[in-house]
């Protein structure tokens, strides 16, 4: 499985008007929906998903409506993903770790 090659990166690498540029942590390997992807130590799961062009993190119970990041602070519970087999974990509150397995799927029906 090769790392997906996004045509235009969602990671900010340019300097801003104050001359600041963020230097990320070391690259690590994680899996998103069975595809191996390079992420960086210190990134949130939500960030990596957005960087990979994934905006729908899960589908809602009852209506199946798509949902992704909204508040970015762990308050709204919209950014739920399955991490290492554990369902409904907030992507904006979880840092990536080497070998992490992430799935963005809808809810199983009870």
């Amino acid at each position, binding site marked *: 499985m090769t790392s997906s090659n996004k045509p235009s990166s*969602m990671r900010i690498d*340019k300097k801003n008007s104050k001359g600041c540029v*963020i230097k990320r942590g070391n690259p690590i390997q994680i899996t998103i929906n069975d595809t191996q992807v390079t992420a960086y130590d210190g990134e949130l799961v939500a960030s990596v998903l957005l960087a990979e062009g994934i905006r729908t993190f899960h589908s*809602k119970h*009852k209506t199946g409506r798509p949902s992704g990041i909204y508040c*970015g602070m762990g308050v709204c519970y919209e950014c739920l993903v399955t*991490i290492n087999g554990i369902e409904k974990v907030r992507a904006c509150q979880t840092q990536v770790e080497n070998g992490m397995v992430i799935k963005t799927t809808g809810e199983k029906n009870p």
Partner: protein
Amino acid sequence: MIEKTDLIIIGAGPGGMQAAVSAAQIGLQVVLIDGNPLPGGQYYKQLPLQFSVNQNSCLLKEAASLFDGIQQPSIRLLTNKLVWGIFYNPKTKLWQATLQGDNCPPRLEAPAIIIATGAYDRSIPFPGWDLPGVITAGAAQVLVKYQGILPGKRAILSGTGPLQLAAAANLVDAGVEVLGVLECNQGLIQKGFLHLTGILGQWSRMKEGFQYAKSLLRARVPYKTGWSVIRVDGEGKVEEVTIAQLDKEGNPIPGTERSNSLDTVVVGYGLTPSTEFFRLLDCEMIYSKPEGVFLPKRDPFFQTSLPGIYAIGDCAKIGGAKLAMLEGEVAAAHVAYQSNRTTKDKFDQMTAKIHQAIKRENRFSKMLAELFAIPHGLFSLAKPETIICRCEQISLAEIRTAISYGAQTVTDIKNITRSGMGFCQGRTCASILSQILASQRNCPPAEGYYLNIRPPIHAVPIEYFTESSNGVQG
């Protein structure tokens, strides 16, 4: 054996950190707890340890003395820990905070707890507000400044207040094509004159605001007052936004609608205090119109109606970092005084100096609240099929039906429809329910009361509560 300390502080943002430093200075043993990996809260949010930036932000330079100040033996800093409940222990007559996280005491007790849990973005529902690609101003800041990630390529900002300018400037700097910044309030300059006294002594803030405005001007980003996003459309994500001009009451003026294609909508309608613990403990709560929610009643030393429970900063009333820090100082001094660790004279001395500064900050935040209130018309953008409770997927139509059954309080709506029974326990939808109820019953929002919250205040796997606990945070 339950670990004891002199003071527990929940929330290591500016307010919590200042309270800890002040308390330690007076000689108290403090435990300072935060759910994030690093202290700083939202206002002084630090980059992840694994990241670095070639230039320190001036905001974090400001915070440096606080970050240094909390590194002392009498302040025990616990990060990445969830306080899932607060209980009163009648046996020890102390307040008990229950914690979840790695390597931490499951319970801590102290005669006093200062709650400094801050605030989060307030939500206004409109058709499409729940599409992926609609994010809050807070989320935009987290992504851009804290993670170096673009939320999208082409964005519009809609909301009210100066925080929007900061978010817009950061997005522009990051390379996002910003179509415009929509401020729903109008006549700001005229209104601003009435509040000149509020601006006195706030030059550093004015300077900050001018910097953001400069960024936007340079990038030729239109700033429109009296406009707002009224709907968002797309197949499973943001694709098109419709904006409209608003009349004085905030109602969209028919015929002024315009649409644009984009991928990101940043909404910034102000902040909502995190009042979970106060409602959990049954503190006396009072309705506050600017925030649209109930806030804990506080005495002049920021103690709630429950002796030993203090509320400082944005979690008690939106007022900004500076005010939070001043309140933190006063509350810490009062805790010390109440536990006989300082004399009345010393206490009076400590607090007298601060009260003037607090008055000034209150004037400023009152001005902001009045200038940047949410005009009434914006509460009616949602259509019957618009989802109001996102966790449980409850629509406006279902809520209206519940009110037609005779619901008199927001808890009645919750019980009938399940709004507020999901993961977020109503953090997103509670103030919206309050508005809908008030509007449909033609009653003041205060009469609809507020939602209860139950422990754990964030969902925790049951495994944690069994004998062999091994908490998983997420």
